[in-house]
């Protein structure tokens, strides 16, 4: 079954290191054809251009296996939007915002210039959620309502305490999908029972997690082929509006 991992990190961070070769090896072990990569750690927080260039290099070396998301800390103001525009122009196909590492409340208008660039380019936004007060699912819903033409991925689906909010928020924004990393069988069952399966995409958040294990666990709960096909590949292609080269 075709499998796309919607959320992995690469980089040589202060705390974590994960290069493209390790990623590809782990993808092969897990049977993942394609992954969407973003920077991590210091590259997400401050050294944004360095991180974007690292992701661009990996994507250009492995265009049949990897796509990439651009990052820029909105506290850099106009230059953040310019960096996003540059990275998208060079070949990245989405934008990742991480209000915890970048130091803002997710619904703060400080991020609007970055979202405007994403809207112009027609690329999706991935936003980390699950951190109390600064990155909650309903914060993301506010962003999605402000930018209805942009598709949003609710990173980690609010894990772990916001499992109810993550699903309840979906009714207020048709342009939001929930990404599965940092979740487990309890929340998978909650998504099933809430009728949210069509809004779920698989992500591993490697190297935080081992993709092989996350897929095994996902398959423990989602046993219907049609559900798995959606979660593992079809829905993320919809979020990307057919722009993923897979």
């Amino acid at each position, binding site marked *: 079954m075709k499998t796309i991992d919607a959320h992995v990190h690469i980089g040589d961070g202060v705390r*974590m290191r994960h290069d493209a070769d390790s990623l590809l090896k782990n993808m092969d072990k897990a049977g993942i054809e394609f992954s969407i990569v973003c920077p991590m750690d210091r590259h997400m927080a401050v050294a944004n251009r360095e991180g974007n260039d690292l992701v661009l290099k990996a994507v250009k070396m492995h265009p049949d296996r990897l796509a990439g998301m651009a990052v820029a800390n909105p506290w850099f103001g106009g230059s953040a939007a310019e960096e996003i525009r540059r990275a998208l122009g060079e070949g990245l196909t989405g934008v990742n915002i991480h209000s915890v590492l970048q130091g803002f409340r997710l619904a703060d208008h400080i991020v609007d210039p970055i979202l405007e660039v994403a809207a112009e380019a027609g690329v999706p936004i991935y936003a980390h959620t699950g951190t109390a007060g600064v990155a909650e699912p309903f914060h993301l819903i506010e962003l999605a309502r402000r930018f209805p033409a942009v598709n949003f991925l609710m990173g980690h689906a609010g894990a*772990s305490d916001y499992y109810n909010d993550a699903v309840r928020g979906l009714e207020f924004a048709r342009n939001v999908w929930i990404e599965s990393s940092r979740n487990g*069988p*309890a929340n998978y069952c909650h998504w099933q029972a809430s009728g949210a399966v069509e809004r779920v995409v698989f992500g591993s*958040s490697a190297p935080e997690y081992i993709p092989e*294990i996350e897929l095994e666990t996902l398959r423990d709960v989602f046993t219907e082929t049609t559900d798995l096909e959606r979660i593992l590949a079809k829905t993320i292609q919809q979020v990307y509006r057919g722009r993923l080269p897979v």
Partner: protein
Amino acid sequence: MIIDAHTHLEPLVDSQAKAHTAYGMVPGNLQDYLRQFDENGVDACFTFMRRGLRLESRICESNDGLARARDKAPGRIYPWGTVHSAWPEKKIRSEIRRIAKVHGFHGLKFAPIVQGYPLSAAGMDIVAEEAIDLDLPVTSHDGSPEYCSAIQVAYYARKYPKLRVISAHAGLRELWPDLIDAAKELPNLWICLSGPTQWGIQTLYDRLGPEKLLFGSDGGLGHPAITTAYLRRIERLKAPKKHKEMILGGNALNFIKGHVPGSQPDGCL
């Protein structure tokens, strides 16, 4: 031997119904609970209540229900009860003494995020006094601001150095780093690994070694894969087999009342 140091059983019969679904699944009865752990190869569990943690009015009844479950599955179920910190002092003290001395419970479990008070509430001082006197360990849900973050659990262990404290979720996905310095400093603080990312579990092991770590899944109420998932995490931990055995069950034995070092609890496989 595998001991799951964090499980829930619903002892209230009227709550084992569709109206009280947990994560999309109807909470099962004792047989369902035991079957889930059998399927996962888990020999024994630290068993906490479910709905009684949210419904203060049904705490005592839930404590009694856990005792009955233990009597039906001795050696498999090691109950940990609860009280409410907002109760009158006399009631807190008497219920702790009752579940320790009459029921023989092995510890106290708190979930401040749903019980509605922080670990720094005055009632938790009374809990600590009784628990120390009775040599009962306390485990608390953590990883959830504003009542029970990981650092708040560390506070409780620091405030009461004679009290054995277990962080019930190791700070969940994001707050586990707070426990590294705390667990190094505090000999009375242990960490149940039901919550962090794989990287978090690996980092806790790399920084702390195996002695302070306990396997736990938060299973028992929903899908059996909840427990399978955390067993996979320990299986994939980069650690010697001996250390994994300590984490999977060896360390938990120290929290079983009356356990004789070197032996296995009655009823264990």
